[in-house]
């Protein structure tokens, strides 16, 4: 999985990092954080996507080897949250690229993130 942070308030980022710690350990399900999108199967997107992020996110999505699963994390990624009416807001993630799973919350708890990802594993 590859982690793309949009204009996030870093709260979701911290919760995502929590999933990698010994307490939650998502390597139990065989998941690892990779450094490049070319090795990734899952693209995690969090934070509100503004006009500049949109270009990067699209570029990243086109660089990814298909099939790739996109997970929108947090209220901002899923719907826009409190930024939904903002000036620079470029739409929630699913307006830009197809999203496979939504994990709402501000921020979502690590348990919620793991539960969403396990549902994704069982689906695919």
């Amino acid at each position: 999985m590859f982690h793309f942070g949009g204009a996030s308030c870093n709260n979701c980022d911290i919760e995502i990092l929590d999933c990698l710690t010994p307490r939650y350990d998502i390597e139990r399900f065989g998941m690892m954080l990779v450094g490049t999108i070319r090795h990734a199967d899952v693209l995690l997107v969090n934070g509100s996507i503004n006009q500049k992020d949109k270009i990067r996110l699209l570029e990243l999505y086109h660089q990814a080897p298909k099939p790739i699963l996109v997970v929108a994390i947090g209220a901002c990624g899923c719907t826009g949250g409190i930024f939904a009416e903002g000036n620079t807001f470029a739409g929630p993630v699913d307006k830009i690229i197809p999203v496979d799973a939504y994990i709402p919350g501000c921020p979502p708890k690590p348990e919620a993130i793991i539960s969403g990802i396990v549902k994704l594993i069982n689906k695919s």
Partner: protein
Amino acid sequence: MVKDLLYYLVFPGFLFTAIVGGFFSWIDRKVTAWLQFRKGPPLLQPFYDFFKLLLVKETILPAKGSKMTFLLAPVLGLAGATVSGMMILLPAFGLKPGFSGDIIVIFYMLTIPSLTYIIGALAAGNPLASVGASREMKLVISYELTFLLVVAAIIMKAGNAIGIGDILAVQAETGPFAGSISGILLFIALIFCIQAKLGMVPFDAPEAETEINHGSFIEYSGSAYSLIRLTKYMMLFILPAFMCTVLLGGIRIDGIHLAWSVLKILGILLLIILIRNTNPRVRIDQAMRFFFIWMNLLVIAATILSHFNL
């Protein structure tokens, strides 16, 4: 002819080393997880990873690079790993005696995977990949001399025998080489060489995930990357097996000796994993200094000691 092909493709060649290497990679990830008080991945995870990359994922070619070289490099690396594995394991298992001088050919064959990583990374046309390739090159330059000196010292200890089979015969007579002072020094030098050859943590500057995003492998995806992963799995088995053969008295597959051989190889693997998990990544110039000065001095000392039969 058919038998040779079977040796090459099934046992102890390609298929056997690949499967054992996959399990070794699982052991590596699992022990790492235990050391960090985690639970670790399921048993078949390396194989899931490999088949997912090979069959499902798309292979992306670099737009501004040499596509042919980019795709051929992993295939050649896999071939190099297979050949070196077979040349080590055939005499080690006692299936077929090696030819005279095969340890020198093995030395060259073991370099081929690292060489193809460099070539593939340079063909990718990515700046981070070329940084990774240049670091890999420096690493190869630094550890190859030590590795060659270790091989030379082993040849000297075996009374100028230059075949794996002869070295094993000498060890069967006089006991494993690692039982002497010079043998222990050689063991230390060789384990660091193996660490660098595998690209594991103290010497993983060429593929540093956190600074240059997998360096040499940054542009690889899909089936090309799956071949690189397979090469890495195989090397994880072949290099400990090589070490076991030349220093610890070989591998035997008859009766109770099998358990003892498995323990020896697993012990080496465990040592590699522990080094990987208890050390930080060294800078490439530090790695070069480490090998050029300290490891070479160590091996030269071992060579002098072995001259006096110590």
